[in-house]
């Protein structure tokens, strides 16, 4: 498999430099770290909001660095959680005196490394709170699993918590805002193809020409189920039904929807999915306040998509509509 890279082991380092080169006035790289922060971090008197995880999900996380969203983003190797000391450097660099909220996508690797970092930061006297996003409804939350994964819904957490912090809320309140999104969001994804990691250079899993995977995550893990190919409408119906079953929303509930591309899917197809999704929302009596379509949380070059639904109230609407100025998301005043 061909990729536009140099050596696989350099790809994260070079990507980070390329990001800073694209946004020199917005982003700054911490010396010797695989960590980007907004250029003006730490923002004095503001709670820092940081995230991080394995690379390969671009524009997540560094694309969301900036006013109204994230202060720091740590980039591990491809699909590999950043190390605790990296995360600690990030946390310290983003503390403007009001403490730091770590937004963690639920996975033991990420959680363990963020835990380590929080312990280290605590020693340095930084207040740290952690929220764990676990929006993936494909995974049963049972004794048998390590909990539900954190996937595309994370971006909504970044947006809402980032806006709350920008408004001057304290650490506890920013964390509560993040939890509110987490409590109200569900996602389910599918893949037409596996991604190809730079290191392995071949598809992580094999999928026949007439097969698709349902319930995939964002790391090329095989999904929960393999089925025959379906039409875009059928895929949309399947994913949406699973998400709505999980959320159990009331008639007339206002929601934000997100059709997220996995990286290799043409935007054209995401809009075809969105068309059916909006019909379904209508049929279900849900009131779509905003509909997002695009590549928010990718899995390298995987073809496929995920559908996210998040119930919103007045507070969340205000926060999601609040100004943001980041490389990958801009919301005007």
């Amino acid at each position, binding site marked *: 498999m061909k990729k536009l890279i140099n050596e696989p*082991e350099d790809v994260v380092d070079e990507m980070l430099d390329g990001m800073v080169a694209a946004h020199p006035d917005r982003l700054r790289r911490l010396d010797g770290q695989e960590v980007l922060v907004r250029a003006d971090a730490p923002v004095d008197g503001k709670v820092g909001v940081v995230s991080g995880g*394995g690379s390969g999900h671009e524009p997540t996380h560094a694309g969301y660095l900036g006013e109204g969203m994230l202060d720091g983003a740590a980039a*591990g*190797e*491809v*699909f*590999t*959680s*950043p*190390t*605790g*000391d*990296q995360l600690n450097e990030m946390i310290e660099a983003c503390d403007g005196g009001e403490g730091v909220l770590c937004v963690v996508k639920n*996975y*033991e*690797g990420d959680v*363990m*490394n963020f*835990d*380590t970092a929080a312990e280290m930061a605590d020693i340095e006297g930084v207040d740290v709170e952690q929220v764990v996003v676990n929006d*993936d409804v*494909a*995974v*049963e939350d049972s*004794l*048998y*699993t*390590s909990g539900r*994964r954190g996937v595309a819904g994370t971006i909504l957490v970044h947006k809402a918590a980032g806006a709350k912090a920008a408004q001057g809320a304290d650490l506890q309140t920013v964390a509560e805002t993040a939890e509110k999104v987490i409590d109200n969001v569900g996602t389910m994804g599918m893949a037409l193809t596996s991604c190809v*990691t730079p*290191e*392995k250079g071949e598809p*992580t*899993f094999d999928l026949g020409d007439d097969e698709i995977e349902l*319930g995939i*995550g964002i*790391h*090329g*893990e*095989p*999904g*929960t189920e393999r089925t025959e190919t379906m039409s875009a409408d059928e895929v949309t119906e399947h994913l949406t039904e699973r998400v709505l079953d999980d959320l159990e929303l009331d008639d007339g509930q206002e929601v934000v929807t997100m059709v997220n591309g996995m990286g290799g899917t043409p935007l054209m197809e995401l809009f075809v999915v969105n068309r059916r999704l909006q019909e379904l929302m209508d049929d279900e009596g849900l009131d779509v306040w905003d509909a997002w379509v695009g590549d928010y949380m990718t899995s390298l070059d995987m073809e496929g998509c995920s559908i996210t639904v998040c119930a919103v109230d007045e507070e969340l609407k205000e926060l999601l509509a609040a100004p943001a100025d980041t490389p990958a998301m801009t919301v005007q005043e």
Partner: protein
Amino acid sequence: MADADTQREAVRAAAENVADRLEDEKEYLTDLDSAIGDADHGANMSRGFRAAADAVADADDAEPSDLVKQVGTTLISEVGGASGPLYGGSIMSASQTFAEDGITAETSVDFAEAYLDKVKDRGDARIGAKTMVDALTPAVHTYKKSIEQDDLPPLEALGKAVDAAERGVEFTVPIRAEKGRASYLGWRSVGHQDPGATSTLYIMEELLATAEE
């Protein structure tokens, strides 16, 4: 047991052997991780242990326990993922068992137990969850009994522990994962061998090989 110099040499040789072995097995470990995970375990482990071997290569007059600790901290800051804190953090923390008396038959049992406890504590995985714990538990239990009850010499005990780990690895194949990325696959994880249990076995095999040298 041997003097500090010999112990240091042993730690360095072990780290080097493990690094070489994991480099050789990189692709295979990645293939295992592809089937039920995210295809990075080989890269993670070989990157980490290469860095660890380099880190301990020329620390001449460090305490043996400090060398072991350095293996752990290097893994923590070089591996990432789930295996970084599990391997690295547990080695780091267990290295304290060598602090007073250096590396002896007795302290090696303490180390093994402390290491297992830390892995289980950090990962919250009980045995049978299809993780490295499944290779580690039988290996540590066997090692402890061989030394403490059967009075076997360490080399022989380690040989038995490796056999036990191997059976643990086999055991991960037919069961459903409850922890780690593989758990997301639900029943589809059945039939696949756990990468972390496998790398645990390789590390133990290299410890044995180093001891035999």
